[in-house]
């Protein structure tokens, strides 16, 4: 093959086309496909059309273009087309109407669920050259039964952001989110799959992701008893920044970038890793079954996984990136993400979000907290 060429890029000349058609036509007369006909057919039927990506807001043409610029350069005829998923529940709801995408991005806690759902297929990591640079702990978190179902990309911590000029914590603990002294200045995060395990950690449960009915009831009762202290339960980062930045909030369940953004506004803030351990989240690209564009999907993920994309993500969105070669310009972010310690994501500092066998019950309990 000529330099820089691969199966997808190879232009088919008119003569070749006629030859291929003849071969394919001939092959069609036979009972089964021969390998020659198969190759001809697969070249004729080479992946075409736009790559259909189901992704979170900010990762498409609404700001994330730099992340997949290399892909667009290589495959200008197969530019990605985006649909926004608000969260995994939203993706599941969208799949109800038909799986009309090639790949999507759930987070690490959902890897097992989707792997078992029959909706996805494992990746072929040999088709992703940048795969070898990705953090091995995160890579392992994307595996299920030995197969690579999720390719890790963006990641971060869930910990506590607070203003040092207004707040004096009693301890380096999740308890700050339940501190009676700061009524009306606290924000929680709108996700039962992280808030309930976090509460379990604070209350000392042994396995917060597998709580018994009694433990869930205890956690629910506790959260309801503390809800009057909470000004808002945020789901959009920009809403959090607005409220925190304007002084309506002093303490929040937050991600590293929220700390970076508040610092940029000149607020005296600290990002506290609690002693009970923070949580960590990792975005995982998953390949949908039945996609007619698996190779394009691999190429897209490879573009996302590069060190260049990783550095852009860190510098502009304040999220970590799984590529170990990607280092942010901001020393603040470097510190907040503990970039120099690739094991931090799942070590003595944090628990990686994981599968919750009774996720639907956790969601129900959380809805009960919000409605109470």
């Amino acid at each position, binding site marked *: 093959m000529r330099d820089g060429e691969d199966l997808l890029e190879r232009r088919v000349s008119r003569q070749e086309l006629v030859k291929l058609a003849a071969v394919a036509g001939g092959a069609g007369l036979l009972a089964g496909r021969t390998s020659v006909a198969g190759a001809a057919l697969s070249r004729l039927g080479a992946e075409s059309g736009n790559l259909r990506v189901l992704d979170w807001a900010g990762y498409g043409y609404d700001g994330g273009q730099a992340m997949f610029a290399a892909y667009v350069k290589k495959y200008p005829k197969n530019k990605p087309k985006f649909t926004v998923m608000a969260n995994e529940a939203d993706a599941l*709801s969208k799949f109800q109407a038909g799986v009309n995408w090639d790949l999507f991005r759930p987070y690490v806690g959902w890897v097992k669920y989707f792997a078992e759902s029959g909706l996805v297929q494992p990746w072929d990591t040999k088709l992703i050259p940048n795969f070898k640079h990705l953090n091995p702990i995160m890579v392992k978190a994307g595996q299920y039964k030995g197969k690579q179902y999720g390719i890790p990309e963006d990641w971060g911590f869930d910990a506590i952001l607070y203003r040092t000029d207004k707040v004096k914590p009693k301890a380096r603990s999740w308890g700050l989110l339940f501190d009676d002294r700061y009524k009306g200045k606290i924000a*929680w995060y709108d996700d039962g799959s992280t808030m309930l395990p976090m509460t379990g950690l604070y209350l000392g449960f042994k396995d917060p992701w597998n709580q018994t009915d009694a433990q869930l009831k205890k956690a*629910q009762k506790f959260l309801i008893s503390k809800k009057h202290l909470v*000004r*808002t339960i945020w789901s959009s980062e920009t809403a959090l920044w607005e409220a925190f930045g304007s*002084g*309506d909030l002093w303490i929040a369940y937050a991600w590293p970038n929220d700390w970076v953004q508040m610092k940029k506004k000149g607020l005296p803030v600290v990002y506290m890793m609690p002693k009970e351990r923070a949580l960590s989240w990792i975005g995982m690209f998953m390949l949908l079954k039945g996609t007619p564009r698996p190779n394009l999907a691999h190429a897209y993920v490879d573009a996302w996984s590069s060190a260049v994309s990783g550095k852009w993500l860190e510098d502009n969105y304040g999220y970590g990136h799984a590529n170990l070669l990607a280092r942010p310009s901001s020393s603040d972010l470097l510190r907040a993400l503990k970039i120099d310690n690739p094991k931090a994501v799942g070590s003595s500092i944090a628990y990686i979000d994981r599968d919750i066998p009774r996720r639907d019950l956790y969601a*129900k309990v959380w809805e009960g907290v919000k409605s109470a």
Partner: protein
Amino acid sequence: MADTAEVGTSPAHRSGHRRPRLDLTGPSLLGLPVAALVVFFVVPIAIVGAYSVDALSIRSGPHPVTLTAWRDLFTGDPFLGHVYLKLFWKSVTISLIVSAVIVALAYPLAYYLALSGTKRKYVLLLLLIAPFLTSYLLRVLAWKVLLGDQGPINSLLSTMGLQSSDHPLHLIYSRFAVMLVLGYIWLPFVALPIFVSLESLDRRLLEAASDLGASRLYTFSRVTLPLSIPGVFAAFLFVFIPTLGEFVTPSLVGGTDGYMYGNQIVDLFGTGFPDWRTGAVLALFLLGVVAVLTLVFARFLQPSQVAAD
């Protein structure tokens, strides 16, 4: 001899009576709207109903039809108790307060516009509706700025010494903020039906009352107000029904305290782990309550009823 079976030559025809032709005007005019109503209203509600009893389900695998979700709503659920009914009642009280207050505020406004005899009445009406023409989100965001802990209202209060600047009033992200913003958004909507019913008052009735020696207050309470009741009820329903299911305003300015029934429906369909079954039950319950209320109050919306008293 003419065949009496033929329409054109039957004795009835010959004597001048025509057998009525099938009048298709009604059905053909109504056909399209009714079809649209069935397709875009009745069918979706039936689909939601199917989700509420698990006839349709978002889960793969077998899902036998069951009334569990409906039962749990009314009898309480092991984990949640009667939380949804309590949330519904919370939304009802918020909507009732908002509706009552803005109807009370809109009435004098509409009264002045309709009965003051000002030549600029339609200009003033236009001014009243003008905020409608701007973006809803912009107006809500403006309130976010105004009501902030360090916003103009709290700053004014602290300057005046009424409130310590370290302990501002928590106006934004509260039930109060939800009621304020809902009232502000819906006020023009509410003024209109009252304006219309007052506008269409027969002025001669008012003249007659005055000629018979009634004071202005007496005329108002015995003539104007009763005749405008249909408009007031229409206005009340006009704001009560939509605000009952509101979720956008509470999500923007409500915080934890201002969380409403509509928010829960949205959350069940779209966050955490989708529970379309419970979401469908809650949505249909709201629809049912609103339908019953509308039927009950419909009789108050008949102006002829009031005029005949």
